[in-house]
């Protein structure tokens, strides 16, 4: 039987083990609100002003990958967590943990791209911290960020708001980031042209917010992929979500790598994608808004909230079969034969 005392890699996968660690240890000790009620950022109120507040740590390996690097990931990821609450990102912090011996040139390149990403998203990096640890005690560079944004009056985005009949929309192809990073990893000689989708989504969100109350839920399907994120929303809202496999936008390169390695793209990480749950009568309008935005050209309606339940997600397969969709369990591992 498993040794309960050990922290395993799977505890950081964003899937079931991560949820267990949060629910059993971290949240009861630190705050007390169940993970099922958690969103990408906390929304706190002060003097009548609602603020969204988030934090994240970045440990991606390798630190440079096609389509981005650990720095762009940190800035865009922080912006996105705020944007998913409907907030306008304002300020962020950057904490750097450097490994002794890291190249100063590489650090400079990463910092420059962070500045560029922050300027592009309209967020100001206003405070930070730098630590260096002995060689071997970290892997070149880890980054921790926090971010603050303002939630305008009338904006109510929450994972618990999905209702029967609502449509599920995604702003483009799935799995690009995870496959780009995997292919860039040493030891896996795959030549693909897949680039990470790493991007700040606050501009796209600002467009979607024009839909007002019809926009119920926003969430970015990062670790754990679309499957895990939709499962979280389904549980939070107490609904069944039915996906149509045929409608899932997927690049041929991602499809190919997933087939070779036995990965399910539904569980592969994205860094520039959002899932929007939208009232049925406004779904086509929301889709149009997405398609007109540069980060939403391949947007598609991929499913529907089909009933009330304790959080079921199911998939109508491309060949017309039906199957359940669970959260990511452990790490996604390649096949053995």
């Amino acid at each position: 039987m498993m040794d309960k005392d050990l922290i395993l890699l799977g505890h950081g996968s964003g899937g079931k083990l991560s949820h267990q660690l949060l629910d059993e240890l971290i949240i009861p000790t630190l705050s007390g609100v169940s993970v099922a009620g958690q969103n990408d950022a906390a929304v706190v109120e002060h003097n009548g002003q609602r603020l969204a507040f988030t934090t994240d740590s970045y440990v991606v390996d390798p630190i440079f990958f096609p389509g981005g690097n650990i720095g762009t990931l940190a800035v865009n990821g922080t912006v996105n967590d705020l944007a998913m609450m409907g907030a306008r990102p304002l300020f962020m912090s950057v904490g750097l943990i450097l490994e002794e011996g890291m190249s100063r040139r590489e650090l400079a390149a990463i910092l420059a791209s962070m500045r560029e990403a922050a300027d592009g998203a309209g967020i100001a990096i206003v405070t930070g911290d730098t630590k260096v640890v002995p060689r071997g005690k970290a892997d070149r560079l880890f980054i921790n960020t926090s971010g603050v944004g303002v939630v305008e009056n009338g904006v109510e985005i929450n994972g618990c708001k999905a209702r029967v009949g609502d449509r599920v929309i995604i702003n483009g192809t799935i799995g690009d980031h995870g496959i780009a990073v995997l292919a860039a990893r040493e030891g896996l000689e795959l030549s693909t042209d897949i680039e990470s989708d790493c991007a700040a989504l606050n501009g796209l969100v600002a467009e979607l917010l024009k839909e007002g109350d019809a926009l119920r839920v926003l969430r970015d399907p990062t670790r754990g992929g679309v499957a895990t994120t939709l499962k979280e929303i389904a549980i939070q809202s107490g609904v069944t979500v039915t996906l149509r496999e045929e409608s899932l936008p997927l690049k041929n390169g991602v499809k190919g790598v997933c087939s070779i390695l036995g990965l399910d793209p539904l569980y592969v990480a994205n860094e520039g994608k959002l899932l929007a749950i939208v009232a049925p009568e406004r779904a086509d309008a929301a889709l149009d808004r997405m398609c007109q935005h540069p980060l939403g050209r391949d947007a598609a309606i991929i499913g529907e909230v089909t009933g009330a339940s304790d959080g079921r997600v199911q998939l109508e397969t491309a060949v017309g079969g039906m199957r359940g969709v669970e959260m990511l369990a452990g790490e996604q591992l390649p096949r053995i034969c």
Partner: protein
Amino acid sequence: MNYLDEFRDRQVVLGFAERIRGLVEGRTTPMTFMEICGTHTMAIYQYGIRSLLPAEVRLISGPGCPVCVTPNGYVDRAIALARLPGTIIATFGDMVRVPGSSTSLMEERARGADIRIVYSPLDAVALAARNPQLRVIFLGVGFETTAPTIAGSILAAEQQGLANYFVLTAHKTIPVPMQILADDPELRIDGYLCPAHVSAIIGANAYRPLAEKQGIPCVVTGFESTDVMQGVEMLVRQVLAGESRVENQYRRVVTAEGNVRAQAVLTRVFTPCDVAWRGIGVIPGSGLRIAEPYARYDAERAIPVAVEALREHRGCLCGEILKGKVSPFDCPLFATTCTPEAPVGACMVSSEGTCAAAYKYGR
């Protein structure tokens, strides 16, 4: 043509479904077909194939998931080796989470063991070349599909004069257990969906004794949804015609003779042996061990280590599930005590395991 979508065509699949329904309509006894290979099991769940087939056609899953049939004792030995100083364990990803008698390689990695996931055994050889002061032990688990590449890694290590590369083998071959299950009166198998990629190595002719002597229809079948549906239709037609032949649905990859070069590498480095299948028992002649001239690469013979006493998990129905006699849903541990996060048996962790497929897609 991208060679994926064409083989997952909805209309083609639905066409097969309709024809199969028409063929078996009105039958009072269902036809039972076993898919041997774990990749088939996963594909059948992933595509929702069962929901497309009529009640008269029953698909049951066989023992063709190499991780699932690897006995606990093997995992225990791998763990004991991982704990030796100066040792790197190199493995395909699936083995890392498989529970042994008291722990797993994943837990040992968290405790400090050096365990590397590789995508090819040649990566493990390269690891040995880069780390001459350490020994690198590759976990050789798999059927005829992987065995030739692992044999090739031993030949590569020999060519490079590496003295620090070893393989801990638990290789198994597919046809013998198929012959045994075919005679099982409890199962009453009406036909086999034969493995796709194993057959690419051993060739479709390998199933002729099954078809010709034991009277079981055999169809070598690919892994895509159209492949599986066509394979089922071919089996249905054989049963209705009272035939038992080897047919090859997967002609775009599999030949009658198989991959002769791979077979040659296999017989050069490995020799057949009796081997234990987890949950099933010892099946004579169904394993592959490293042949005498290459014994110095065999981790079991070359690196003595004390292995903990074997402890089987009580209540685990993996054996019956691997033989196709019960479904994962019949196991009292399924999705309660045994989950992918805290697996009791390997069938729950392997990406080809019947329980993993049922947990992930079937509930």
